[in-house]
C-alpha cells in the first residue's frame, strides 16, 4: 500500500490526488463538475476535449413541466416517463427526474443557455414523443429547446461554466481501469488509471470519490447515431471489476436515422408536425397509434417502421426505408426550428427537405441499461448495497428512470438532474472520507495490457472484427429479436472474443497511438455486446425497446423485474454462460400499476 503526493512521478507513472475524480466530460460529467469544482479539489478526465462529447449531438430538447405555453405539471411528466418505459421504470426515480427537471432547466438558463423564447420572452416549449397532457389525453408542449441543437447548447453552456469555475480538465486521457481496494470487507474505489494519448504515459488519479459519466456504447451496432468514440469504456471497466450491469438488453433504436447512415434526425421534426409515410404515401402511424400518431414513443415508432419495410411498404429502389415528410411546413419554420437536421439531409443524402421527403430508418441510439445506481447516483454492488465513494450518472448509469424505453428529451434531463446529484453527493462524501491507499503497483494490469497490444504480432484486423460484430448485432439483436437470432449473434461474439486475443496493432509508437486505443475499445465493445445479448436471451417477453418475436407480449408475471448481470468465473471462457451470472431486481412501484400501453 502506497500513496504519492499530487504530481509525483514514479517509474514513468504520474500520481495525482483529488477529492473528486470525474471520468467523462459530457453533460453528466460537466454538470457534476460545476457542483464539485467550487467546493472540492476536482479533476475531470476525458478521452475527448469536453466540447467533442456526444451530448453535443443531441437535438430536440429537454423535458420539464414549466407550463410556459400550456397547462402541465410534473406528475403528468412522471406518468409519461413510467408508461413510456413500459413500467420497468423505478417510479421514485422518475418522480425525482420530473420534479427536479424544472430547476434543472432554470439552472441552465441562468448559466447562459440560449433557449428559444415565447413571445413573452419565456423559455419556449414544444411537443415530443410520449409526452402528454393528463395521462395520455393529447400531446403536450414540454420540451425546452434551442432550435434543433439543444444538446450542443447544453454542452457549450456547461463547458463555459466549467471555464468560469476554473475546472481542472485532463483532456485526451483514456481511463482504462478503476482501482478497487478491499476495506472492512468491502471493495471501494481508490482511484483510476488513465492513459495519456499525447505521450502514451500512464497516470493514477487517486480520489476520495469517483464519478463515472462515460456515456453509451452504440458502436456495438452498425447503424447508429452514436459517435465513433462511444465504445462503452466506462461501463466495460465497471463490468470487468465484477460489479453488476442492469437492464443491458434494453437498447433504444431511434425511429428516424438518415437511411444508410444512421445520423440522427430529431424527433423534434415530428414535434413540429413532420409525418412518417410509407412507399404508398400513407401516414402509417395512424394505424398503430390512433391518438398520438407520429408522436408515439420511440420503441413503438421504430417497430412500426420496421414492420412497414418488412411487409413490403418500404420506399426507394430496394424498398428498404420510409420517409419523414416535412414538405408541408414552411421554409421559415424549418429554418427557425429544424435548421441542422435539414442540413444533414442536404449534405449527406442530397435531399432537399423543403420539397422532398427524407429517407429514414431506425438507428441504434441509447442504452437504457448500464451501471446500477440509487437515486443519489451511488453505484450499487448488488440490488441494494452501495459502493461508498463510487458514483455514476448519465447514459452509462441505470437509475432506472428510463425503464425499457426512454422518452425523447429525458436524457438531456437525466444528465442534468443526476449529474448534479452525483457532483453534490460526491463532494459531501469526500468532505469526511479519507483517501483509500493505493495497492502496490496499481498500473500493472493496464501496463501489461498496453504493452501486450503494442508488441503483439497479431494478425486479426480490428476493423474487420468490429464490422462483423456490428453487422451481426444489426441483423440479430436490433428492433426484432428471436431466440434463434440471439443464438446466432452469440456465436459470432464468442468467435470474435477468441480472435480478439490475436488482434493486430500496427502503430508501435507511444505518441498519439489511436490504433492501440481502438483495439482496447473493441475489447469493451465485445464484452458489452455479450452481456446485452445474454440478457436479451433471458428475457422471454417483449417490453419497450426489447421485442422478442417469439414472445411478443409483455409478461408482468415473470418479467416485471430488472435484469442484473454479473461477471463471474473465467472472463475469457468461450461460453457466456460460464462467466455471466444473471439475477433480478424488483422494480420500484409507487403510484402507477402496470397497464396495457396504448397511445
Amino acid at each position: 500500500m502506497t500513496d504519492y503526493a499530487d504530481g509525483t512521478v514514479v517509474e514513468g507513472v504520474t500520481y495525482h490526488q483529488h477529492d473528486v475524480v470525474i471520468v467523462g466530460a459530457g453533460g453528466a460529467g460537466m454538470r457534476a463538475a460545476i457542483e464539485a469544482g467550487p467546493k472540492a479539489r476536482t479533476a475531470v478526465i476525458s478521452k475527448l476535449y469536453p466540447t467533442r462529447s456526444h451530448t453535443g449531438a443531441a437535438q430536440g430538447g429537454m423535458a420539464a413541466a414549466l407550463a410556459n405555453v400550456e397547462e402541465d405539471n410534473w406528475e403528468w411528466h412522471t406518468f409519461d416517463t413510467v408508461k413510456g418505459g413500459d413500467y420497468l421504470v423505478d417510479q421514485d426515480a422518475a418522480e425525482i427526474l420530473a420534479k427536479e427537471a424544472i430547476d434543472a432547466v432554470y439552472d441552465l438558463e441562468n448559466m447562459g443557455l440560449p433557449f428559444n423564447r415565447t413571445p413573452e420572452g419565456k423559455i419556449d416549449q414544444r411537443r415530443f414523443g410520449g409526452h402528454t397532457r393528463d395521462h395520455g389525453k393529447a400531446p403536450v408542449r414540454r420540451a425546452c429547446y434551442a432550435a434543433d441543437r439543444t444538446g450542443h447548447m447544453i454542452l457549450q453552456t456547461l463547458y463555459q461554466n466549467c471555464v468560469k469555475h476554473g475546472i481542472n480538465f485532463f483532456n485526451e486521457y483514456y481511463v482504462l481501469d478503476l482501482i478497487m481496494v478491499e476495506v472492512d470487507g468491502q471493495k471501494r474505489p481508490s482511484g483510476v488509471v488513465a492513459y495519456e494519448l499525447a505521450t502514451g504515459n500512464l497516470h493514477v488519479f487517486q480520489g476520495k470519490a469517483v464519478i463515472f459519466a462515460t456515456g453509451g456504447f452504440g458502436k456495438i451496432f452498425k447503424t447508429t447515431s452514436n459517435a465513433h468514440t462511444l465504445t462503452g469504456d466506462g461501463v466495460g471497466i465497471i463490468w470487468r471489476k465484477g460489479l453488476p450491469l442492469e437492464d443491458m438488453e434494453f437498447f433504444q433504436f431511434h425511429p428516424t436515422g438518415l437511411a444508410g447512415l444512421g445520423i440522427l434526425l430529431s424527433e423534434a421534426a415530428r414535434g413540429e408536425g413532420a409525418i412518417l409515410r410509407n412507399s404508398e404515401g400513407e401516414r402509417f402511424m395512424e394505424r398503430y397509434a390512433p391518438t398520438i400518431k407520429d408522436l408515439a414513443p420511440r420503441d413503438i415508432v421504430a417497430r412500426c417502421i420496421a414492420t412497414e419495410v418488412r411487409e413490403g411498404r418500404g420506399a426507394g429502389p430496394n424498398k428498404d426505408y420510409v420517409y419523414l415528410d416535412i414538405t408541408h411546413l414552411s421554409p421559415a419554420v424549418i429554418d427557425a426550428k429544424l435548421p441542422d437536421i435539414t442540413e444533414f439531409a442536404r449534405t449527406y443524402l442530397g435531399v432537399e427537405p423543403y420539397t422532398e421527403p427524407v429517407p429514414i430508418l431506425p438507428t441504434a441510439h441509447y442504452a437504457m441499461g448500464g451501471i446500477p445506481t440509487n437515486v443519489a447516483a451511488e453505484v450499487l454492488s448488488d440490488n441494494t448495497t452501495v459502493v461508498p465513494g463510487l458514483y455514476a450518472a448519465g447514459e452509462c448509469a441505470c437509475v432506472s428512470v428510463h425503464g425499457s424505453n426512454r422518452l425523447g428529451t429525458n436524457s438531456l434531463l437525466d444528465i442534468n438532474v443526476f449529474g448534479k446529484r452525483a457532483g453534490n453527493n460526491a463532494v459531501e462524501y469526500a468532505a469526511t472520507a479519507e483517501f483509500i491507499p493505493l495497492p502496490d503497483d496499481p498500473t500493472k494490469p493496464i501496463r501489461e495490457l498496453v504493452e501486450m497490444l503494442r508488441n503483439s504480432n497479431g494478425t486479426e484486423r480490428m476493423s474487420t472484427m468490429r464490422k462483423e460484430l456490428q453487422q451481426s448485432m444489426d441483423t440479430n439483436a436490433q428492433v426484432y429479436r428471436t431466440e434463434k437470432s440471439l443464438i446466432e449473434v452469440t456465436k459470432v461474439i464468442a468467435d470474435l472474443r477468441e480472435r480478439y486475443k490475436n488482434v493486430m496493432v500496427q502503430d508501435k509508437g507511444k505518441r498519439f497511438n489511436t490504433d492501440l486505443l481502438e483495439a482496447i475499445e473493441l475489447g469493451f465493445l465485445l464484452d458489452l455486446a455479450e452481456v446485452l445479448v445474454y440478457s436479451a436471451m433471458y428475457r422471454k417477453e417483449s417490453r419497450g425497446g426489447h421485442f422478442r418475436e417469439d414472445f411478443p407480449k409483455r409478461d408482468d408475471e415473470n418479467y416485471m423485474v430488472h435484469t442484473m448481470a454479473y461477471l463471474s468465473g473465467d472472463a475469457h471462457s468461450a461460453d457466456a454462460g460460464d462467466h455471466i451470472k444473471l439475477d433480478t431486481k424488483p422494480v420500484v412501484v409507487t403510484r402507477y400499476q402496470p397497464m396495457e400501453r396504448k397511445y
Partner: protein
Amino acid sequence: MSTATLDSPPAPADAPIPTFTVTMMVRRFNPEVDEEPRWQDFDVELYPTDRVLDALHKIKWEQDGSLTFRRSCAHGVCGSDAMRINGRNRLACKTLMKDLDITKPIYVEAIKGLPLEKDLVVDMEPFFDSYREVQPFLIASGKPEKERIQSASDRARFDDTTKCILCAACTSSCPVFWTDGQYFGPAAIVNAHRFIFDSRDEASSVRLDILNDKEGVWRCRTTFNCSEACPRGIQVTQAIAEVKQAIMFGKR
C-alpha cells in the same frame, strides 16, 4: 499512384452504386521518427457519397493503422476533424468525395498555425487558451427565481455565433494567425461576440476591452478566410466587424 477511374459506366438506379479509386495524398509526421513532415499517397476505393473521413478510416483500418487523426461524431457537430483538404479548411466528416475533383489526388494535411503533433493532429491548447481568455461565459448578477426574460429578437441577435463548435477551422485559416500566434483569432472573437450581444450579459465592456488589445480584433484584415472555412456557416467576418463597431461606437 494511380489517377481516379470509374470502375464502370453510370448504371441504372437499382444497380449497385459504382465505386471509384481515389488517390489520397496525406501529409504524415511521426514525431518519434521524422525530422520533417512528408507526403504519402494511398489508393482507396470509395463511393461518391463517402466522406473524406471515410477515406481516412479506410486507410487506417485497411492499410496503415498508424495514420493518426481526431474524429468523433462524424456528422459535423463535435468539431474534432478540422483539416486542410485540397488547401481549404474543412471538416473531414462534412466533405463528400463527390464534391471534390477525384480525377486528381486529394491532398489532406493538418490545419496550420498550431503546433503539429502527429500526422493530422495538432496541439489545440493555444487555441483553447485564446478562447478562455475572452471570458466565454454569461456574467450576470442576481439569481432569478425562474428564467431570465429575453425577447425573441434579443435572442436572435446573437444566434449565429452560438453555433460555434470550436473546431478551429476559422482560426487556423487566418493568415494573421499563421504569422502571429498571439492573435486571439476568429473563434475566440466569435465566442466573445456570443456574449457581448446577449441581452442578459453584464460584462460586454470587459470583453470589448480585452479585444481592443493589440492582439485583438484590430489585427483582422477581413480576408474572409474564416467565414469560408466555418463548417457551421457562421458569418465570422461579420461578427468580428460587429465587435469592432461595438468597441468604437458601443453596442447596437
